[in-house]
């Protein structure tokens, strides 16, 4: 049985358990995938794996609109870490979720580089080694002038579609700083430097779980995860904090206490 069959079987088991009203997974659609809530008894033949898409925000939406519902959800390593960070900020109630852990394959990791491409509990697939972010490591070798030239070129491509924010499982503020005229003027393209992307980068500190969805969704191909990866490494070194690693660790920038 291949990985997809195993996933369908795992989803079926959760659906048949009577513990959940449905299982949130991906469904094949027009050559791509879309989030879909499978109900008990549903045909699972169009349940899909790839291209990956983050499900935490969709499940948050479903749990909010159905306050009594209990759901199953297919989670990759990044989805699980995303849910953990969301739970810390009271965005999602993990007690109402049954996680179906899915490990990424080496091919998937090559496409979407990640240091921990598997969830804590794996139901389907086998854990493969994570990889370092090669481009992030290369940044260290650039001079300050080269870095500014590089990023000004990258940010100049931005036409403020907000795709990076909209896809992010950690962006759930009711009011977004990126839409506040004081910090990011409306109607100005590309956003002035330094504003939009640096503000967003700062706001990912202690939250970004490295799912790469922002970069994958960027129509201008801005390598955003370079900055987020570097800042994640800094937060690890400075505060010993790894987003998504555990429910108990407190996000460093929102709690009191200095080390």
């Amino acid at each position: 049985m291949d990985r997809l069959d195993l996933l369908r079987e795992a989803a079926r088991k959760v659906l048949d358990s009577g513990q959940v009203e449905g299982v949130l997974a991906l469904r094949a659609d027009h050559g791509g995938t879309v989030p879909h809530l499978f109900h008990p008894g549903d045909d699972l033949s169009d349940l899909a794996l790839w291209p990956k898409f983050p499900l935490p925000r969709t499940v948050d939406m479903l749990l909010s609109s159905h306050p009594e519902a209990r759901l199953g959800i297919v989670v990759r390593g990044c989805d699980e870490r995303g849910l953990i960070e969301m739970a810390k900020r009271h965005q999602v109630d993990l007690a109402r979720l049954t996680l179906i852990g899915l490990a990424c394959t080496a091919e998937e990791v090559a496409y979407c580089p990640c240091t921990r491409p598997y969830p804590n509990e794996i139901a389907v697939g086998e854990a493969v080694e994570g990889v370092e972010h090669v481009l992030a490591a290369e940044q260290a070798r650039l001079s300050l002038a080269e870095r500014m030239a590089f990023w000004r070129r990258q940010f100049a491509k931005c036409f403020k579609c907000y795709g990076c924010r909209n896809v992010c499982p950690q962006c759930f503020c009711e009011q977004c700083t990126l839409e506040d005229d004081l910090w990011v003027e409306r109607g100005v393209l590309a956003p002035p430097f330094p504003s939009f992307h640096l503000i967003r980068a700062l706001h990912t500190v202690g939250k970004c779980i490295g799912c790469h969805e922002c970069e994958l969704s960027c129509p201008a191909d801005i390598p955003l995860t370079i900055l987020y990866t570097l800042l994640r490494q800094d937060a690890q070194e400075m505060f010993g904090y790894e987003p998504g690693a555990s429910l108990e660790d407190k996000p460093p920038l929102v709690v009191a206490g200095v080390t």
Partner: protein
Amino acid sequence: MSEDFEPRIIGFLCNWCSYAGADAAGTSRLPYPPNIRIVRVMCSGRVSPELVLRTFREGADGVLVLGCHIGDCHYTDGNHRTAKRIPILRKLLSYVGIEPERLRLEWVSSSEAQRFAQVVSEFTETVRRLGPLELKGGA
């Protein structure tokens, strides 16, 4: 860098400690460079990263954030957040090619007039050495 470059420095000073410290420096007639423009804020924790970025964007060559010493915050732990936020922002500045030395965080109490004058003098010299902040390069 031209010899007569005068750095433009914006200082965000906490109302309870550092602003009083600056006031004390004034009443004690302690000299410090006139390059700093002081903005009084209610807490150094109020200085968000977007505020610092906008300040650079508006033409500051250096940004100085002064707050109460850890343990002395009027709001108990406002400066705890500053203590973590500013170092991370300095890292980010360096990643996009802005010298992190252009942003400095120091603790200055209301009785530390001498320290205030010294920090402002040192920082002004640091920024003078770095030269004007050029944000246009390479675009």
